[in-house]
C-alpha cells in the first residue's frame, strides 16, 4: 500500500515533468499545447493523491477544458506550425538553460533548509470536499470570492474589447 502510493507519486511526477519538458522543447506549438494538457492531467492526479478531489475536477475543467481550448483555438487562428516557428540563437538557448538551472539549484538549496512541522499521522479527507470548500469559500473568503467574480467579468470585457476588429480597413488578419 505504501509502496503503491510512492509508486503512483513517482509515476505522476515523472509524467508531469516529462510533459512539461516536452511542452517547452516541442517544435510544433500544437504539440506543446497537447503535452501541456498531459501535464495538467498528471497534476490533477497529484491533487487526487493529496485528497483534493473537488479541486482535481475543477482543475481538469478549467485548465484542460477551458484554458487549453483557448490556447489551441488561438494557435489555430494564427495558423502557427512547425515551419513558421522561429528559434532563438544557440547562445541565447544555452543562457536560458543555465539561468533556469541556476534557479533550480537555488530553489532546491532553499527548500533543503526549510524547517517543517512533523507530518500528520492521518489524513483528513474531508478538507477537499465541495461541502468544506464551499463553506470556507463563502464564509471566510467571501469578499475575495466576489472580487474574483468582478475580475473575471472585467477580464471578459477586456478580452472582447482587445480582440475585436477595430477598423476593417487596416486589419487584414
Amino acid at each position: 500500500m505504501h509502496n503503491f502510493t510512492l509508486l503512483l507519486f513517482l509515476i505522476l511526477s515523472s509524467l508531469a515533468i516529462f510533459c512539461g519538458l516536452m511542452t517547452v522543447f516541442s517544435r510544433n506549438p500544437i504539440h506543446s499545447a497537447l503535452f501541456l494538457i498531459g501535464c495538467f492531467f498528471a497534476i490533477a492526479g497529484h491533487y487526487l493523491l493529496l485528497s483534493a478531489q473537488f479541486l482535481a475536477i475543477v482543475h481538469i475543467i478549467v485548465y484542460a477544458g477551458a484554458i487549453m481550448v483557448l490556447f489551441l483555438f488561438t494557435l489555430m487562428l494564427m495558423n502557427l506550425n512547425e515551419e513558421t516557428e522561429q528559434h532563438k540563437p544557440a547562445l541565447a538557448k544555452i543562457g536560458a538553460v543555465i539561468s533556469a538551472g541556476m534557479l533550480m539549484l537555488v530553489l532546491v538549496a532553499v527548500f533543503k533548509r526549510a524547517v517543517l512541522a512533523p507530518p500528520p499521522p492521518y489524513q483528513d479527507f474531508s478538507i477537499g470536499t465541495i461541502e468544506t470548500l464551499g463553506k470556507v469559500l463563502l464564509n471566510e473568503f467571501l469578499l475575495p470570492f466576489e472580487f474574483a467574480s468582478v475580475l473575471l467579468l472585467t477580464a471578459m470585457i477586456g478580452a472582447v474589447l482587445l480582440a475585436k476588429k477595430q477598423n476593417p480597413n487596416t486589419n487584414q488578419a
Partner: protein
Amino acid sequence: MTVLLLIVLLPLAGFLLNAFWGKRLPKVVSGWLASAVVFVSFVLSAYYFAGFVSGTQTKIDADIYRWIQFGDLFIGFGFLLDQLSAIWLMVVTGIGFLIHVYSISYMHDDERFAQFFSYLNLFIFFMLLLVLGNNLLVTFIGWEGVGLCSYLLIGFWFKNQDYNNAAKKAFVMNRIGDLGFLFGMFILLTHTGTLHFSNLASIQPGVLPKWILVAVTALLFIGATGKSAQIPLYTWLPDAMAGPTPVSALIHAATMVTAGIYLVARTGFLYAQAPETLTAVASIGAATAILAATIGVFQNDIKKVLAYSTVSQLGLMFVALGVGAYVSAVFHVVTHAFFKACLFLGSGSVIHALHGEQDIRRMGGLKKYMPVTYWTFLISSLAISGIFPFSGFFSKDEILAAAFAHHKILWVIAMLTSLLTAFYMFRLLFLTFTGEFRGTEEQRHHLHESPPLITIPLIILSALATVGGVLGLPEFLGFHHWLKNFLSPVVAKSGAHAHALSHSTELALMGGALAGAIVSIAYSYILFVRGGALPVPEGEEKGITRLVYHKYYVDEIYEKIIVQPVMFLSDIAYRLLDRRVIDGLVNTSGRLSMIAGGQIRKLQTGYIGYYMMFMVLSLVAVFVYALLIRL
C-alpha cells in the same frame, strides 16, 4: 491707536485697489480714489496734530504686535506718534494730497494712469511707516519701501533706457546708504539689545562706549546721505528727475529726501553724545550745499536746476543738524517742502504747456501765457531766496544764525550758498518767464495756462510758502517761536543749541542775508533781463564754466574709480569663476551623466527575452543573498 493705524493703512488700501482694479476703473475714479485716501489720512493726521497743538494729545508709543522675539532680542512692530512725527505726518499727507490732485491732471494722458497712482499711494504708505515707526527696524521698512517706490516712479516711463538707468542709479546709491543704516542697527542691537527709540533714548550718557556712539551715528548718517542726497551719494537725485514731475515734487523734493533729516533728528539723543559725528554732519552738509549750489548755476534743464537746489537746501538742513539746531532743520524741512514742491509743480506746469520741453534755453516769455504759474513760481523763488517776509527767509536765517554761532566758516559757506541760490533761482525764473519765447512756432501756438487741477495746488502751496514763516518767528525780535515750543518735548533731550548770539548780531546777520539775496537777484536781473544773456549752447562752455556745467565730472570720476573697477572685477569673475569653475562643474557633471547614460542605455536592448532573463537572474541573486544571510 486705531485712528493712527487707519492713517497708515488707508494709502495701502488705495494702493491695493488701484494696483488690482485700477485698470478697470475710469481714470477719474482711480485718480480721485487715490487722492481721497490720502486726504482722509491728512484729515486724521490733522486731528492728531490739532491735539498736540492744543496740548490734549499725548505721545503715543505702542507696539501693535510682537514681531521678532528670540533669546533676549525683542523687536515689536509699533508706532510712535509725537510732535516730530506729527509734523512729518502733516507734510507727507498734506503735500502728498495736493500732488495727487495735481497728478490727476498732469498724468491724464498716460496709459498707465492707475499704476502711477498706486505707486504714489504705496509711497505715501511707506513714508508714513518710516515716520511713524517706533523703532529703527520699522523705520527701516519704510526707508526701503520709499526707496523702492522712488525706483519705480523714476523709471515710470521705462521705455526710455536713460530713465531706467537713472532709476537703477537711484536704487543702487540708496542701497549703499542703506547698508550703513543696517550696520548701524546691527551695532546698536549688539550693544544695547534694542532698537526702540524710547529705550534708546533712556540710555544714560556714558553707558555706551564712545566709539560705539560715533560708529552708530556715523553709519546712520551714511544711510541719511544716501536717502537725502549728500556727498558722496548725491549724484542720483539730479538724475532722478527722469521721473514724472509730480514724483520729483513729492519724493525728490518734499518728502522722501527729508527722511535723512528725520532720522538724524529722531536719533538726535545719540548724535548729542557723539560731537565728532555732528562735526562731520555739518561739514558734509556745508560741502554738499556749496557744491550743489555752484552746479545749479550752470544747469540748463529746468528740473535739474531745481534738483541741485534741493541737494543744496538739504545740505543746509544737515548743517543745521550738525550744529545742533534741530528745530531749525525741521523748520527748514517744512518751509522747503512748501516752496520746493511749488517750484517743481510749477516747472511741471511749464513742461506740460511746452509738451515735454525742459531746456530753459528754449523757453522764455511765458509770463503772459501762464500768469498763475508765473506768480506762484515767483513767490516760491522769493521764498527759497530768503526774501522777507516769505517763509524761506525765517527758516534760512535761523540756520545761518546757528551756523554763525557754531563756526564762522560754516556760516560763510552757508551764506555763499544762499547767495548762489538766490542767483540761480532767479536766473531760472527770468530765463523761463521773461523776455521773448525762444521755442518753435508750433509750441508758441499751443502755449496755455494749465487747468485748475494744476493751478490750485500751485496757489495753495505758494500761499503756504508765503506764510509758512509764522511757524517760527524769530525770538530775538520778541516773537513767539511756535515750532520751538511745539518740538521742545522731543528735541529737548537732543541738546538744542543755545543762541549765544546777541540781538544786534542776529539782526545784522538777518539784514546781511537779506541784502545779499537782494543783490544776487539784482545781479541776476541785470544779467538775464537787461543784458539778455543766454546760456551758451551745448559743448561750447569754456574753462571753469565747463567744469561746473559738467557737474565737476563727479559722475565720470565715480565711473572711473568705482564702476569700472567693479565692472572689471565682475568681468574677471564672470570669465574665470562663472565660465570656468561653475559652468565647468555643471557641464562636467552633465557630461558625465550623459556618458554614463549612453553606456548604460545599451543594456536596454528592447528585447523582452533579455528582460526576462535578467528578471530570472535577479531572482536567483535575491535567493542567493537570502541564503547567504541565513548562513
